[in-house]
């Protein structure tokens, strides 16, 4: 029964009770009742009735029990058990908290913000804007558990994965959640490098004690990119003691790294074994669905609304979260500067210009790409660059053009020249077509990924 049904139902019961009692009795006792729950068990109903005070409860129980039971049984058509419970009607207390009261509401945001700053937690990174998919579900669940129950769930929590998969976001989100619950929690977020610098400074200024006070008394220590301390003996030793001090007092330690502890070279054995004692989770590169979700979150944060088609178009063509962020910034800037609307065409034209401006992506010469594509699709190089427009040839050729254009950033004309002296408009068409297909066709996405990996 929904809440509205329940209210109407109870009203109906009360109306029938009203007939049998005096108005004064009705308004004194029965108006202070409400229905909490109604459950059918076997062939009986169990009814829970809430009363505002125990005086109401005892009076109705003693004097009007039969009356209420009769009405209920008649209305429900089955016999019923009634339990009276003293509980205030939630609706009457709903109006609570309508207006802020100065002593409690003031500076709450400021306070949390300052606690974020103190802990060096980035307030923008929280669980609410962390998108979860199969690639990071495990890590997310572990992080949630740690945030709910710091120090007990998994200690230490070791998150590892490639660049831009969301390790730091997850770590910040844990800190965010802990601070949300308790502004006064002593937590600190730093990178492995900062930790190192702090020790070095401590040694130089003879203030190792203050360094120890800073780290060892924490409720929660977050160290990003812990692999940086590998190979630094003094730092590792200090970290070892810090780690023991924090976990020994029931504190939580969360670490991230770009590889699992077993693969961090020059890491002391005692540290490695400690890392391995907690939970080690990895985050892999975001899959297509996750990228879509990330794009939606990021564009929403920046106050633009993309259609699902556009979102998929971007997700299909860009494969890491950081690049997505970069692309969105570029998209917004482009739209603002040229006073354009964000349309699929605009997205497509930006994608066509090549995403990886840093040149970090594939570094191969065009010929290697041609051979990779030919090999992947098992078509002859000659056929691929030839004149045939049969589908088994034409599609790989278009993929080749797409790769040459987006991954190697060759000019359109150059792409055309490489692919058997084709016109630049043919190349444009191919790039547009493939980026479009990518949004809907999983097979082609995998093909492209496979070719990229083989390069």
């Amino acid at each position, binding site marked *: 029964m929904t809440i509205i049904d329940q209210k109407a139902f109870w009203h109906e019961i009360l109306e029938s009770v009203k007939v049998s009692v005096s108005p004064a009795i009705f308004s004194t006792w029965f108006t202070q009742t409400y229905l909490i729950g109604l459950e059918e068990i076997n062939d009986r109903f169990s009814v829970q009735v809430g009363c505002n005070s125990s005086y109401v409860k005892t009076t109705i129980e003693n004097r009007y029990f039969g009356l209420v039971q009769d009405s209920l049984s008649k209305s429900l058509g089955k016999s019923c058990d009634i339990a009276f419970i*003293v509980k205030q009607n939630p609706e009457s207390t709903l109006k609570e908290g309508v207006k802020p009261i100065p002593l409690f509401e003031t*500076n709450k945001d400021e306070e949390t913000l300052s606690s974020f700053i103190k802990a060096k937690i980035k307030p923008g990174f929280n669980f609410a804007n962390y998108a979860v998919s199969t690639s990071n579900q495990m890590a997310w669940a572990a992080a949630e558990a740690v945030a709910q129950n710091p120090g007990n769930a998994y200690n230490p929590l070791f998150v590892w994965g490639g660049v831009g998969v969301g390790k730091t976001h997850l770590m910040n989100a844990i800190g965010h959640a802990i601070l949300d619950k308790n502004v006064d929690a002593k937590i600190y977020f730093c990178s492995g490098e900062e930790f190192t610098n702090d020790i070095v400074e401590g040694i130089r200024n003879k203030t190792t004690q203050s360094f120890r006070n800073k780290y060892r008394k924490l409720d929660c220590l977050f160290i990003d990119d812990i692999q940086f301390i590998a190979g630094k003996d003094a730092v590792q030793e200090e970290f070892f003691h810090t780690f023991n001090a924090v976990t020994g007092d029931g504190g939580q330690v969360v670490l991230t790294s770009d590889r699992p502890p077993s693969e961090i070279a020059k890491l002391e054995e005692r540290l490695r074994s400690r890392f391995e004692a907690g939970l080690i989770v990895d985050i892999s590169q975001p899959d297509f669905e996750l990228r879509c979700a990330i794009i939606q979150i990021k564009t929403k944060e920046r106050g633009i609304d993309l259609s699902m088609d556009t979102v998929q178009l971007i997700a299909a063509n860009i494969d890491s979260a950081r690049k997505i962020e970069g692309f969105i910034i570029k998209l917004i800037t482009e739209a603002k500067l040229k006073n354009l609307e964000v349309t699929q065409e605009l997205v497509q034209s930006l994608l066509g210009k090549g995403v990886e401006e840093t040149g970090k992506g594939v570094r191969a010469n065009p010929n290697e790409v041609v051979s990779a594509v030919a090999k992947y699709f098992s078509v002859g190089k000659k056929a691929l660059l030839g004149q045939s427009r049969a589908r088994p040839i034409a599609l790989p050729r278009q993929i080749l053009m797409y790769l040459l254009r987006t991954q190697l950033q060759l000019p359109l004309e150059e792409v055309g020249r490489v692919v058997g002296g084709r016109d630049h408009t043919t190349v444009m068409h191919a790039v547009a077509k493939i980026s479009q297909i990518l949004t809907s066709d999983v097979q082609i996405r995998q093909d492209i990924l496979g070719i990229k990996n083989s390069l």
Partner: protein
Amino acid sequence: MKLQVLQENLAKALLNASRFANQRAQLPVLGNIKLSTKKTKLQIASTNLEVSISISVGAQIEKEGEITIPAKVITELVSNLMPGTINIEAEKEQLKISSSGFSSTVSGMNTSDFPSIPQSIDAKTSIVLPKKEFLDALAQVSFATSVDESRPILTGVLFIFQKDTLILVATDGFRLSQKKIKIANLPKLDQVVLPRSPLGELSRLSEEAEEILFNLKKTDNQITFGINDTILSSRILEGEYPNFEKIIPKESTIKVEVDKDELLRAVKLASVFARDSANIVKLNINKGSVDVSAESSNAGNQKTKIDAKVTGEKFEIDYNYRFLEDFLHIVKGETVSMEFSSPTAPGVFGDPSDTNLLHLIMPVRIQS
């Protein structure tokens, strides 16, 4: 029902009970006081459905029985009788009262519609509160409860039971008062919020008592106090009490200690003008002194300088003089301490002779 009872005892009990009867209730029986016999006691009970009271008075019972009588009528009758023995006899729905040279018949009602209210307290499961300390603490806290019904939870006093310490807290959102009292062997209980009105009655009802029994029934949402022969019950306020610990400032940059009476006088002087201007008084904290000033655009202005022990920088803060006055009235020691950190953060007020008392007042923020 037939019995004899002493006028002194009955009159006092009726006077107390009549405060809880509600003359204007829709249900007439709620405007009545219930009289019933129990062994050698006459029990006098009344309720307004928020709070209920039951008082036992020693009596000579000849015949058992019970009846309800309009509170006003019986209270006025009995309190005007001469001290001495009164005969009371109930027959059907009428009560006959007689003493030497006086007789009266009062129409009452039968007790079937009268709600059942707690008439005894289980001493075993109750907490024994030392009366004086408890009532003193209550007086230092309960004035800070809110009168605004839109936030019902703040109209009550929060009771927190900690090992050996009972903490009472009240706040109306502008100020907060907290007092701790040491009580040995306090059982572990959930915190509860009790309405202010029955707590206020406690001091009136417990003039002769040494101890107050405190019994919490979470399932019934009911709290019962036992004061000698009087049982006072009230419902518990439901809702979540705001997290007050979070707003107590942990550190402060300015610490001031001043003579209480001097400050009270200064605040009263300032209030003359402050009344015209939103009750605002200004505290100017300088080296070794505090200036209390107020001004009104129509009436004029004033400034009082009082000597103070000050640590910290020069500082200026605005307060509602009523809050300062309220606080100064509950301080028992000769000096008061004030700690501030910023003109927009609550100030921490205290009594250096009583570290169990903590008071926060939110400053007035003047939009400039």
